[in-house]
């Protein structure tokens, strides 16, 4: 139920979105509902949060800390979502944090027993940011169901490190911490392969991204923002306005978008 000390009584009145700068690295934890995000969170930070076996438990973002190789990592447990398309409050919260919360690494926890459905979110996250680690969780359940996954191939296809884990039993967590640290410190630079869309979209996105590039000041991936604008995602405009102080709906810019769509 997520009825932890952090989430009950007076503390419910405290909202936490963007963390104060901690001096360490900031790690976002994304994933589908029920892929074991909270279990991974607990395993990394020590027992801090109750994990619930029902979808949509983490409404508020739980946060915890762990140290590894002399670095401090602040881990933020995002609400479980199937996508980042901002169709719901949870999706918007998760997306806003990944885009504007400036995480150094985004870990996507993936349910190994239904990879295809989970990859959807992974692909959307890798479109947003390069600093992604895939935590292939529930490997124990996958083994029980006799599902074998070719981890190196998956990592090659996605272009990001993939760490198989069974968080409940503590399997693979040391490796996960090493990988997070490597990506955070820049020792490892994932290069996810971009998804290629059909010619119209690519052309439109390319033109739009060129215009957006100077406006976003390197804070966001211009191609990704272009794609979202093509989708007509208004919530992202709000987010950009709120967190980056850039108003993309100014007349000048609007014209360009229109031009692209014509």
């Amino acid at each position: 139920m997520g009825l932890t000390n952090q989430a009950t009584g007076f503390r419910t009145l405290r909202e936490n979105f963007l963390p104060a700068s901690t001096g360490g690295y900031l790690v976002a934890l994304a994933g589908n509902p029920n892929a074991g995000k909270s279990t991974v969170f607990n395993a990394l930070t020590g027992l801090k949060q109750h994990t619930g076996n029902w979808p949509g438990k983490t409404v508020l973002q739980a946060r915890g800390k762990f140290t590894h190789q002399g670095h401090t990592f602040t881990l933020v447990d995002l609400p479980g979502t199937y996508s980042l398309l901002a169709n719901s409050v949870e999706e918007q919260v998760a997306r806003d944090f990944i885009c504007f919360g400036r995480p150094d690494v985004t870990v996507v926890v993936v349910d190994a027993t239904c990879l295809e459905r989970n990859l959807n979110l992974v692909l959307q996250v890798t479109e947003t940011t390069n600093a992604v680690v895939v935590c292939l969780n529930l490997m124990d359940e996958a083994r029980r169901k006799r599902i074998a996954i070719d981890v190196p191939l998956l990592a090659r296809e996605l272009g990001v490190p993939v760490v198989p884990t069974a968080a409940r039993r503590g399997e693979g967590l040391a490796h996960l911490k090493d990988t997070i640290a490597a990506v955070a410190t820049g020792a490892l630079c994932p290069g996810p392969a971009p998804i290629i869309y059909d010619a119209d979209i690519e052309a439109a996105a390319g033109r739009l991204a060129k215009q957006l590039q100077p406006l976003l000041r390197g804070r966001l991936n211009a191609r990704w923002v272009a794609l979202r604008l093509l989708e007509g995602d208004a919530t992202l405009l709000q987010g950009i306005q709120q967190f980056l102080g850039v108003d993309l709906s100014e007349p000048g810019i609007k014209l360009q978008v229109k031009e692209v769509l014509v």
Partner: protein
Amino acid sequence: MAGQKTDPVLVEARRLAGDLEDSYRDRIVAALYARAEAIASRAVKEAPAPRRELDWRLDAILTSRLWGYPIMLALLAVVFWLTLKGANYPSALLASLLFAFQDILTSLFHRLDAPAWLHGIVVLGMYRTLAWVVAVMLPPMAIFFPLFTLLEDLGYLPRIAFNLDNFFKKAGAHGKQALTMCMGFGCNAAGVVGCRIIDSPRERLLAILTNNFSPCNGRFPTLITLAGIFMGGLLTTAAGVAAATLTVVGIILLGIVLMFFTSWLLSRTLLKGVPSSFTLELPPYRPPQVLRVIIRSVLDRTLYVLVRAVLVAAPAGAFTWVLANVHLGAFSIIDHMAGWLQPLGKVVGLDGYILLAFILGLPANEIVIPILLMSYLSTGMLTEVNSLAALGEILVRHGWTWITALNVMLFSLMHWPCGTTLLTIYKETKSLKWPLLAAVIPTALGLAACFLVKLLAGLLDIVAAG
């Protein structure tokens, strides 16, 4: 969205309709899915038919039309029976320990020649309230929560939502309200925040406004204690425990019925609209991590109760002691205040002191009973409330019958939410209207229910005497 394949026909139709943005969106989504499918088909080596026979079989029973509800009820009853049975002994032990320490404190104050008022505020006010809250609140919570958490860990909660979905739909509410309702049993403020999982603003408001019908952490022990004394014959016999359990389960069920009723009423009046459909993933059943859950939730609840006791109960205790011991004329302030409330209290089968305790208990529901005891005992009768029997004696001496106890339980279920919850509702809805409504609705229902019970009891008396 998830799992939907974009239909090319739809895309084409939209394109012809000239809705370009949507078609872009669909094409983008389709490309994502195609890529995910391509990667998965190459990376997943052998995926025979998923072996979920056991899950299917369990679901067929636990969510069946015939067995779903009886099993839910039985589980609820078992959880409460264990709570009542199990909490009794540690409660008594904690009470005798804590009250023994009170005597040590008192003698310490005497030896230091402390003024009587200081001893009153610190020991009789703060410490005694704190001790009561810890002794009475902690054990039931430390038993109930781990049990509930185990059910959750198993994956049973979404099945509850599945079972209740139909009722919520009929009431014009969202099926996910079942989950926020369950959260409310722990803390209504958390339940209200949890309502964020409901997307539609209308249904979210319904869930927020009716969350208070889940008796929270601070009210459970009150229900359990009163049921133990007045319906359970002090829990000395198995039959007594069973009777008390049934009473508590009855109150919980009444709360759930009221939640449906209020949602239904609101969705036909203030919050008109049709319920939206949603997909709820039924996660696989997982063997619960028993030890971890127990340690986690026992520690968590213990800490929660202790923190609340120190932050809320102790100051409230001091405050109440002052009210009970500062006299204006012949009576203390508390007596005066209770006197004003007495007429209303009597009409609805309670009394002025009870209503006052609920009003002073606004910061937190845990302190209602300690405040009530303090106002009853302010006459200098310093009994130590270290057992159900002693507590029962005090209440009976102040004119309580089982009707009074039932009414207090009903009013505890149906009155304004605690201060934190009201603030949370304000924060979540950004308007004063909703917290106000969230307070008025249950209070009106509570007063009405108490009045009805008193009326019925009166009629029965006449019939019996006639």
